[in-house]
Structures are given as structure tokens and as C-alpha cells.
């Protein structure tokens, strides 16, 4: 094996190992603070958003409604600006999920599964009526649950003053991050394939409620 080839292999190994460490393996378990959990746990709030989705170099936009229903279900409806409904999802306690409507072009298992997980995280579904564990990493506290080898986290600063972001991933790899620019902007970023969703909350006075 040539010297350069050895160097290349060593460098690749180092990058790979560093990559593994950037997952969740460095998290240190700690006792969960129930006051902080109650304060910062994400919950669904009824609102209309203008949504932009960038996936694989394509851009799609529309209006997104998140609504808490009187029967305690949470609904997520995405329509085009001109009014056509693309999908209507329902989330219920006990990880129950129902697709009320979806247009033929989006009705693919990977599409529904990806959107379901993204919106479930945003609505705080993985944390509803679940035992939440806590871990520390630097100045941040991770609160989370694990299901089917996938962990969902909401991440607070050390003083439990603010919700920093939401994350979802496997033990080794971060897959999705949701962060918030103030109260009105939500960014959903996928790390394993090129997909971003940006939600801009529409002003209450401008939309009929």
C-alpha cells in the first residue's frame, strides 16, 4: 500500500469517527427536570402558515394549517396558495395517525412517512403522555423519547429559559432539526437528504379564524 493511500485511509477513518461522535453518543444522562419539561415541551398551537418546501432542488409552496380540534385531535392541512388541498393529516394520542386526504402525486409511502415524522416532531407528538429522559451536552439539556431506534428531542438551554430547537435522529446520526426564528418562523431541516421546510406564521388579523 502506497504512503499516500495509507494517509488517505487514515484521514477517512478520522473523518468517519468524528462524524460518529457528532451524533448523540456524547450525551450524558441526567435526572429530568419536570418543571422544565412542562415549561418547554413543544405543543401544537392552532395557526396558519405560509409554507415553502425545498426538496431535491425543487421548490413548492402553499398554506399550512395546524389546528387543535375540539375532539382533542391535531390536524395538519397543506393547500396550494390557489386553494387546492394537497394533504390533510390527523394526529391522535397513542401515536395514532390518519391521512384524511392526499393528492395522488404525493401519495407515496416515503413522502407520507417523512411528512408524518416532521410534523409529529413539530407538534410535540413524541413527548405527549410519555416518560421523558434527559441528557446534558455542554450548555444544553436534551429532553427526549426513543421509539423504534429513533430518538426525538426538545433541547433547552442550561437554565431552562428557552427552547433552543427540536431534533430527531438515530443513536449515531442527527436526521432532522427544527429551529425557530422568533415566534413566527419555523425551519425544518433534513440532514440525510436535501429537504427544507420553512413556515412563516400568518398574522392573525390577516387570516380569518
Amino acid at each position, binding site marked *: 500500500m502506497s504512503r499516500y493511500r495509507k494517509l488517505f485511509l487514515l484521514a477517512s477513518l478520522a473523518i468517519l469517527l468524528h462524524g460518529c461522535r457528532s451524533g448523540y453518543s456524547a450525551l450524558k444522562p441526567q435526572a429530568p427536570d419536570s418543571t422544565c419539561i412542562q415549561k418547554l415541551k413543544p405543543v401544537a398551537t392552532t395557526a396558519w402558515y405560509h409554507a415553502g418546501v425545498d426538496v431535491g432542488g425543487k*421548490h413548492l409552496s402553499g398554506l399550512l394549517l395546524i389546528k387543535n380540534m375540539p375532539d382533542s385531535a391535531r390536524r395538519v392541512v397543506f393547500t396550494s396558495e390557489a*386553494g387546492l388541498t394537497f394533504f390533510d393529516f390527523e394526529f391522535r394520542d397513542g401515536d395514532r395517525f390518519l391521512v384524511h386526504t392526499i393528492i395522488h402525486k404525493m401519495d407515496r409511502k416515503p413522502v407520507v412517512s417523512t411528512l408524518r415524522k416532521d410534523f409529529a416532531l413539530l407538534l410535540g407528538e413524541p413527548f405527549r403522555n410519555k416518560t421523558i429522559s434527559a441528557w446534558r451536552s455542554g450548555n444544553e439539556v436534551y429532553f427526549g423519547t426513543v421509539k423504534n431506534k429513533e430518538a426525538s428531542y426538545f433541547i433547552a438551554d442550561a437554565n431552562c429559559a428557552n427552547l433552543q430547537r427540536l431534533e430527531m435522529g438515530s443513536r449515531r446520526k442527527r436526521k432532522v432539526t427544527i429551529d425557530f426564528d422568533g415566534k413566527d418562523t419555523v425551519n425544518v431541516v433534513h440532514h440525510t437528504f436535501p429537504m427544507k421546510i420553512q413556515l412563516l406564521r*400568518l398574522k392573525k388579523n*390577516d387570516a380569518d379564524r
Partner: protein
Amino acid sequence: MPQNRFHKKLHLIAATVVLALTHTCGFAQYNGYSAIADEAAFKVRFAAEASKISSISSDFTQEKELMALTEKITSTGKFWYRKSDKIRMEYLKPFSYLIIINGDKLTIRDHDKENRVNVKSSKLFQQVNRILIDCVQGSILNSREFSSRVFESQRSWLIELTPTSKTFHELFKTIVLVVDRSSYAVDSVTMNEVAGDVTKIVFDHKKLNEPIPETVFTR
């Protein structure tokens, strides 16, 4: 048994009443409108009169109603049309969004993101493009994508379009156009989706046949 015969008769009467009521409803579903007698003659007149419209500029108000969720969102904007294949629809509130159709070119602008599509590259875009233009030009009644029924009131015509093609049949139950009786310009478009949701776009402050600069359809 006389008692049984009485019940059978009662059921028959009830069934007849229900049938009669539903039959009547089928023809009276648009309040204030009645079916026109000669649809073929209307088709010719509508196409001829609408073709006299060389341009339209108007405001619009769009109301999307999610029936099952009892939610409604209203958006407003500006609409421009210039004969024969240029449309600009600009949403201004509560979000900004722009669609420009200029011949075969479709431009969609969402904030700072702009998509330019050659309509010829997609059959769906071609169909949607054609329908929009057909609605404004009055040739929608000749479209193979829809079957139609036409009703009239003192002030307007009402055209009910039912999709016949698979693409639109999956999306819409009906699309209803209300056309001004004197100008033959479209007053409103109502899209009734298969899932029950309804979107109504009402065009207000219409100005017909006034010059509209080319730049409206280029940027």
C-alpha cells in the same frame, strides 16, 4: 295482512317523496338560477362575446374553506389578463405569491424564490394553463376536460363544469363560474374539491379592455 299492506304503502309513499325531493334538488341547486333552454346557442354567444374582451385588470378576494375543520382563510390580490395568453395573479395579503402565465412560460414567485417553467414540459401545466385561458376567453364550454351545465339569472350566467378527465376528476367535484350577463367577464370562480373543501375567488373592480403594459407579464 291489512296492517302490513298499510306499512308497505307508507314506505312507498315515503320513498317517492324522497326521490321527488332529491330529483328536484338536482335541478335547483343554484339559488336564483334556472337552467338555460339552448346551451348550444349560449356556447356560441359566450365564445363570441368573451372574445371581445382584450384585457381585464381587477382586484380579487379568495376564500378557502376547510369544511371538516370549520376553518377559513381569506387572501386578496390583483389579477391581470391580456389577450390571448397572458395572465398575472398576484397574492398580496396575508402572504405574497405571484403566478405569471405568458404564452408557454409560467413563472411562480414565492418571496425570493422564483420558478420558471416551460408549460410545454408538463402535461398538467399545459392543461391548467389551457383551462385558465379558456375560462377567461369563453371557450371553456368546448373543453374536453369538462362536461358543463349552464344556468341563468337576471344578472348573470352560471356555468357548472364537471371534470371528465382523470387528472381533474381526482381533484374537483365541480368548478363553477359566474359570468356577468352584460360584459361576459367572469365574476367568480368556485372550486368544489372532492374532499368537500371549497375555494371561491371573487373578482372586483374589474376594468375591461384597458391597455396593460407588457412588463406586467414579464416581471
